């Protein structure tokens, strides 16, 4: 089956094309012939191997290179040749003077005589005479020795592969190897690339004119690329892009605000720094109540101006309620201490006190604080969601109805209500909701009707329905996070990984 050639990367096509012409090539040769870097070729070959278009074979190849004496012999001739040439030139001179004129190295002369006479039969010795002086050249001096023939190979190249040598040349190399410092034998590992059958048919389809040399290194996208004339690898992994995003909590807050607005609620806001008066006293938390202790609440250095805390009437009314319910006299010096609000309810209460609405639906989503150590399940700074509704005939059933509808809009269908206790509401309920994704009932928002001790000092006459709870628990459920600290870790990887739409 023919490979679908258009899915190949230009680099891959180039390699295939070259292999089609040469059958098998090494990485280095491919790099040279293709104008691609070694790395580009390696990666291209790996991809082609993965696509079963090429085979990669690891071989060891033997090379020869001339050593010092070999290099000089290439210029001047081998010692035995120089010897016989000198004798031929001046046959009358004795060996000794010839040797002198040719400046043989000490160990060379003997070897030269032996090779010229015994191996190459260039010199003949008179019979019965063993003296060196009586050597005369033979006709064989016209023939090149095996060594000489193989030496010619190195005239133009630095190294010669063993596979390129003829038998005679191989013999010459063997002889040279026996002589010191003439040739070096080098063994190297090489990677050879050959085409598979599929590869061969794929290579045959490539029209090289489409891919002129050097084309692959360009960085600009050419017009042909855009029109799809030049095919690209549609499987290839691409660079990851990170778009700008809002924080996951921002998205959940926006969703919750939209639910409130859709139910006719209006958003209110207020300061994070509150006086103890509004954070505690006005909400009927007695001055000796444990919640006011240092280990639950963050107190700030400095005090609020006593006159600016609240109206005189509000202060008097609140102090009366406290004095009626505590053995300790209410003390304004406890009330003007500054705290980081422990709930958003002081904002709500002040809004109701200032506006005295006969009927109202308001909400807030704001940061609140507890002086606690941050753990897997607790933060010292988190968001409170709070909803408030008031009208002359507001009832506990209305509160349950608002709560049920709020949950329904969040995608929570099953809700149970249980009685509970909160310091500033009576009656008080807690809600249990069924979370489908984890198949569990969880306690979520608390709710109730403001106590008279809270409402009456602010001249609020109608029942005030209130409910609220933490935002982060909802976020954990929504995002599948089990350590609450993750939400504020600002780990970029996490922020990038959270999807906008939870499927």
């Amino acid at each position, binding site marked *: 089956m023919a490979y679908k050639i258009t899915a190949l990367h230009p680099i891959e096509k180039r390699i295939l094309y070259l292999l089609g012409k040469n059958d098998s090539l090494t990485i280095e040769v491919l790099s040279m012939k293709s104008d691609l870097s070694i790395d580009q070729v390696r990666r291209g070959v790996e991809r082609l191997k993965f696509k079963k278009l090429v085979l990669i074979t690891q071989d060891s190849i033997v090379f020869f290179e001339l050593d010092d004496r070999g290099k000089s012999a290439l210029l001047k001739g081998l010692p035995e040749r120089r010897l016989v040439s000198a004798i031929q030139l001046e046959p009358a001179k004795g060996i000794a003077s010839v040797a002198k004129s040719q400046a043989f190295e000490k160990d060379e002369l003997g070897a030269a005589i032996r090779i010229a006479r015994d191996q190459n039969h260039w010199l003949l010795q008179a019979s019965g005479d063993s003296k060196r002086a009586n050597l005369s050249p033979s006709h064989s001096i016209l023939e090149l020795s095996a060594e000489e023939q193989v030496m010619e190979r190195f005239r133009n190249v630095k190294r010669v592969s063993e596979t390129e040598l003829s038998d005679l040349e191989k013999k010459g190399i063997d002889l040279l190897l026996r002589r010191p410092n003439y040739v070096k034998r080098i063994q190297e590992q090489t990677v050879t690339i050959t085409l598979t059958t599929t590869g061969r048919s794929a290579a045959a389809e490539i029209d090289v004119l489409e891919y002129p040399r050097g084309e692959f290194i360009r960085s600009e996208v050419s017009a042909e690329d855009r029109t799809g004339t030049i095919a690209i690898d549609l499987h290839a992994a691409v660079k990851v892009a990170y778009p*700008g995003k809002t924080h996951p909590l921002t998205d959940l807050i926006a969703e919750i605000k939209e639910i409130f607005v859709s139910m006719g609620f209006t958003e209110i806001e207020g300061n994070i720094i509150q006086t103890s008066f509004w954070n505690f006293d006005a909400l009927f938390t007695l001055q000796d109540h444990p919640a006011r202790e240092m280990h639950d609440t963050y107190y700030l250095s400095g005090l609020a101006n006593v006159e600016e805390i609240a109206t005189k009437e509000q202060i008097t009314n609140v102090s009366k309620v406290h004095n009626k319910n505590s053995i300790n006299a209410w003390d304004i010096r406890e009330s003007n201490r500054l705290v980081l609000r422990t709930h958003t309810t002081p904002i709500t209460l002040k809004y109701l006190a200032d506006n005295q609405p006969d009927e109202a639906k308001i909400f807030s989503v704001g940061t609140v604080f507890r002086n606690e150590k941050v753990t897997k399940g607790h933060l010292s700074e988190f968001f409170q969601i709070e909803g408030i509704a008031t009208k002359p005939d507001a009832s506990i059933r209305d509160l349950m109805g608002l709560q049920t509808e709020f949950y329904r809009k969040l995608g929570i269908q099953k809700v149970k209500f249980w009685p509970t206790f909160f310091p500033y509401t009576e009656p008080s309920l807690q809600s249990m909701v069924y979370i489908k994704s984890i198949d569990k009932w969880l306690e979520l928002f608390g709710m109730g009707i403001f106590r008279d001790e809270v409402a009456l000092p602010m001249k609020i006459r109608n029942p005030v329905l209130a409910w609220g709870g933490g935002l982060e628990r909802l976020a954990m459920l929504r995002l599948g996070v089990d350590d609450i600290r993750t939400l504020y870790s600002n780990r970029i990887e996490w922020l990038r990984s959270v999807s906008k739409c939870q499927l």
Partner: protein
Amino acid sequence: MPVVEVPLTVLTKSFPEKSIEEVIASLPFVGLDIEGRNDKIIRIEYNPNRPEFSSYIGIVRALKGYLGIETGLPKYKINNDKNFRIKISSSVRPIRPYIRALVAKDLEFGNDIVKMLIDMQEDLHMGICNKRKVASIGLHNLDRIRFPLSYLASSSDISFVPLDSSQALSIKEILNSTNIGKKYSHLLGKTNEFPVLLDAAQEVVSFPPIVNSINTRLDNRSKGIFVEITAVDPTVADLIAAIYASTLYDMNFKIYHTTLIDAKRSIKSPDMSPSSISASIAEINRYLGTTLPRKEIANAAARSRLGTRNSARGKLTCIVPRYRNDVRQVRDLIEEVMIGLGISKLSPTVPIVNVTGNRSPNSVLIGKIKEVLVGLGLQEIRNFVIVSSFLQFDSMGLKAKDGSFFKIENSLVSGHDILRNSLLPSVVDTIGHNIHSSYPQNLFEIGKVFTKGEAEPEKWNLCVALAYNRADYTSIKSILQAYFKVAFGRDVTTTPNSYDGEYADGRSASIMVEGKEVGKIGEISDLVRQSHRIRVPVAAFEIDLSPFLNSFRTSM
């Protein structure tokens, strides 16, 4: 919230005609949370306004009402024995003025009962007694008490063998050298006189609120129990006495009054006289959203263990047992009716939207600003308002100016102690915590910052930071310019300015909009980057959003 352990056998014995699961399933409907259970016990969490749930006796009593097995006001018969007298000296008035006491006898004690009573005492000490500050409870072996007792203030020389000790110690020694003494001595304040309860032989029975004598220790061989409560608040002392009396009575002990005699009068303790509240049927129905007839409301109140009495037309009077001081007003009564009725009987009403809702203008504007910033390719981050002064100042090469920022007086975590007065340090810190993530890291944060001594101490700020190998003044200014143009249609200019510390010299400027400075822009200095171990260049700006929030209009 406090937790009480209830053996499952208690529930099976108390409700023979109900299945255990039915009993357990009804716990939440009387306001109790199931914290955990195994095959022997169930752990039940109760709310601090119901101290009588500190033993399973109180829980069973409420459940019997809710399940309709035993309804209405519980009746308690308290016996008299003139021997059980306590003389109160006026000398205790400035230190711990009130004492209440009761006697229970004629029942075998077992280990279980002793443990339950001690657990209950512990829970009450932690809760309603506010760690013994408001009141403290002593439980004694009645057999070892020689009446009449006297409650008086003594010098610190008086000595006795306290619980968990083998030798007699003076009050002084107890306060200075025993663990319990050191833990609670602060409750007595600076005084030379200490409250003690002495028996007829002038032996110390107890030294409230610190420790009892070992002589009168309650054990499983005791034939009777003497309970004393000393307090700074008489209502709490009375409440605890009533809780013990009702609990021990329901366990089938015979309960006796004690007679408390001071210079002016003599009273009997425990006081079990109930109180009463009248409420209009219409008001109860209005709050509940119901139209129930009087009889049904009375039945519901009875299931919450309240007595009911006919009163004027359209009204219902309820009798509240002495051990419940959380039912004081009409609204409390409404909650009792709601519980007795069963919350599952109250169906939620479908809300009708008859008023319109809006998001606040700030919330709308900030939402739009975020849209612009996201469009500029920025990732939002959220840091905490509370930071360390090291991060806010030192790590940014800045000096903290006293009085210009808010300090937290009592942070649990050292260093976690000021409110941020700008966002930039936390944003730079975030980049420093993400040096192993890929760049560019282009971030923004919108959040509140706090400046002490200004007319508006809380303001909204925006901070943008770019971190990658080519982040520089030009790239951040280009974002700044686009932000102002797209968000507000305003042109922004920058006036060279050198800021100490956070920005590099010659690479920072003031941000000017319509001639007013609204923030700073620049390349973060090498020193600051090094202190946050950041190796890439960082360029940032921070602006005060309040002028834009104040002039933002949502209407035409």
